[in-house]
């Protein structure tokens, strides 16, 4: 495996050339139109896709995460380098990179070189989407592109129109589902905005933190960045504002799911298939039954123990007179012996 490793000498040379190209661009302010592509990421991805099949499933996710995070921290350093294009010194380039990062939290056009670093602040949102996907029939980010702002206001009014005619119940259900979907989308947008504004603050904090300390490695940069993000995150998510935002997001998802459920129940009911409500009733009744059975079992066990105890006591009680009788008999027998002895003596004396 190591023969075909992606970190061999050829790769090192290519990587050096890649960085030298950037370095030249800095020094000579060439202003190249198309930046070179980074061979490291490409090589690593090729290598991973080739060997992935040999890795046990338990380790695949773990290894992918290490590679993704590796990319994350090198991308930061790379962006700093790229920002140096046309700048006279690296510090100015760094300032430009941070400025670009801050800007990217306001708007993230598709070709934005800072998009990947700013996406770091989407991690909480991504985590949410994964979780929401696991609980939904649709992917967690399905609703991210739904209209909001002015368009949403118009749609709100439209969806508030009462249903008419024979299908009014059904219309109302679908309107309600649409409304819930839009409310959820709005809650997700608020949630994303919260992290976006936090991301902007984190770049300022990063600037402060690295102000005096020389940044000598990509790892140092990455660790400092993570530290800044965690520090700001911890401060902001303990607030009442965040708690409300968090509550709105979870509640909005639940309303959406429950609207889905109502429509699904309706369909199931028409096909004579047990609905969610039917199942809930069965679950509750089953637990009541189980509880009752356990209580009865416990009472039966207690009664059984009581009976066994009584039986044991009875045996002891019955055994006592019997033992007393036996003892009495033994005593009688013992007492009789001397008599025999006496009788024998008498017999002998009569001889």
């Amino acid at each position, binding site marked *: *495996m190591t023969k075909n490793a992606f970190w061999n000498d050829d790769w090192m040379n290519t990587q050096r050339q890649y960085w030298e190209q950037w370095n030249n661009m800095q020094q000579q302010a060439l202003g190249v139109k198309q930046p070179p592509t980074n061979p490291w990421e490409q090589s690593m991805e090729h290598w991973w896709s080739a060997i992935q099949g040999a890795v046990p499933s338990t380790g695949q996710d773990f290894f992918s995460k290490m590679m993704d995070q590796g990319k994350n921290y090198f991308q930061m350093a790379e962006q700093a380098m790229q920002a140096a294009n046309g700048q006279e010194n*690296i510090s100015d380039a760094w300032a430009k990179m941070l400025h670009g990062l801050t800007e990217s939290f306001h708007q993230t056009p598709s070709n934005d070189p800072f998009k990947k670093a700013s996406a770091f602040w989407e991690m909480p949102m991504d985590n949410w989407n994964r*979780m929401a996907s696991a609980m939904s029939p649709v992917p967690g980010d399905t609703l991210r592109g739904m209209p909001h702002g002015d368009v949403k206001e118009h749609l709100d009014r439209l969806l508030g129109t009462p249903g008419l005619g024979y299908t009014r119940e059904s219309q109302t259900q679908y309107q309600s589902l649409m409304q819930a979907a839009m409310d959820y989308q709005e809650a997700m947008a608020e949630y994303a905005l919260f992290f976006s504004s936090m991301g902007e603050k984190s770049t300022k904090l990063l600037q402060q933190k690295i102000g005096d300390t020389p940044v000598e*490695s990509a790892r140092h940069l990455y660790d400092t960045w993570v530290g800044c993000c965690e520090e700001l995150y911890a401060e902001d998510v303990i607030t009442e504002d965040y708690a409300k935002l968090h509550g709105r997001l979870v509640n909005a998802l639940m309303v959406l799911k429950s609207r889905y459920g109502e429509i699904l129940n309706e369909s199931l009911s028409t096909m004579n298939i047990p609905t969610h409500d039917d199942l809930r009733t069965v*679950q509750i009744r089953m637990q009541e039954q189980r509880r009752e059975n356990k209580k009865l079992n*416990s009472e039966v066990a207690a009664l059984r123990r009581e009976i066994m105890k009584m039986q044991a006591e009875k045996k002891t009680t019955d055994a006592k007179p019997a033992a007393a009788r036996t003892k009495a008999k033994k005593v009688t027998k013992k007492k009789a012996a001397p008599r025999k002895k006496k009788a024998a003596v008498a017999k002998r004396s009569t001889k």
Partner: protein
Amino acid sequence: MINFQIRPDKLAEEMADYSRKLGHGIENLIDAGEIDTGVTARTAVYKEDKLVLYRYDRPEGVEASNEAPLLIVYALVNRPYMTDIQEDRSTIRGLMDAGQDVYLIDWGYPDSSDYALTMDDYINGYIDRCVDHICEAHGLDSINVLGICQGGTFSLCYTSMHQDKVRNLVTMVTPVDFKTPDNLLSAWVQHIDIDLLVDTIGNIPGELLNWTFLSLKPFSLTGQKYVNMVDVLDDPKKVKNFLRMEKWIFDSPDQAGETFRQFIKDFYQKNALMAGEVEIGENVIDLANITCPVLNIYAQQDHLVPPDASTPLGGLVGSDDYKELAFPGGHIGIYVSGRAQKEVTPAIGEWLSKR
């Protein structure tokens, strides 16, 4: 002035170093094989529904010095093999070495048929029947109980209702005051409509709990941790230990809906345990009913159950024999760190054996 000194050649070298470690590490990962969980031999002594009560097998020739066995009541969240995660990091083994005869409740994985299980079912049902089973097996009227995290809260409720069956109570990283200012979990659930949540999804999926726990420190727990791991990838033992911990973190059973409803509403939202207003079945939980000796262990850097959430216990129990033990570590470190093996389990064993 920003002092930025990353040079292109240094950056290339750093990338190469990272890549080499990944490349070598992949072989250790392939060799890691199946990840085993729980290392100490044990015997299932009682089963009920999905619950299994285990008794840990003592090494041959080694007798428990404490006459009263110890029952570990773990949380419903995550799996109890955290207490026995690897040979040299096992709370169970430490307790056995300290002379205790150890039992543990494994709650299993609730499914939709367990949706309607209540806290009353768990505490006055399952826990009580396990205690009865152990008492009967040992010919005793009472045993020692060790509750962990949520299991600690359950143990407190149990002891307040069945004090006669608990000889000594140990609580580890156990929340009592659920509304301290530094409790992130508590802050986050205050505005969630729990009735809507449970009515809509029934049992609470493990994914939701994972998301919540990872959200406590998202950048470290879902990112930086993996970068740090690259540094130790060349050590097969460390790789295996890391994978074992990863398995545990994401091995989150679903939560029975009705129990979750009561636990979050009464404990987190109303903080009713502090107010003496929690109702379990027909009983109101009054911690003053706890009169047996209590050892309360908390972790000083615990971000799930902050120390302030645990320490109010001392002022609430009716016991004259209350002791606290502060461990300099986190919520997980209290079981798995090397220091915990040296300090926590021997301290529990000694405290129990004296009583």
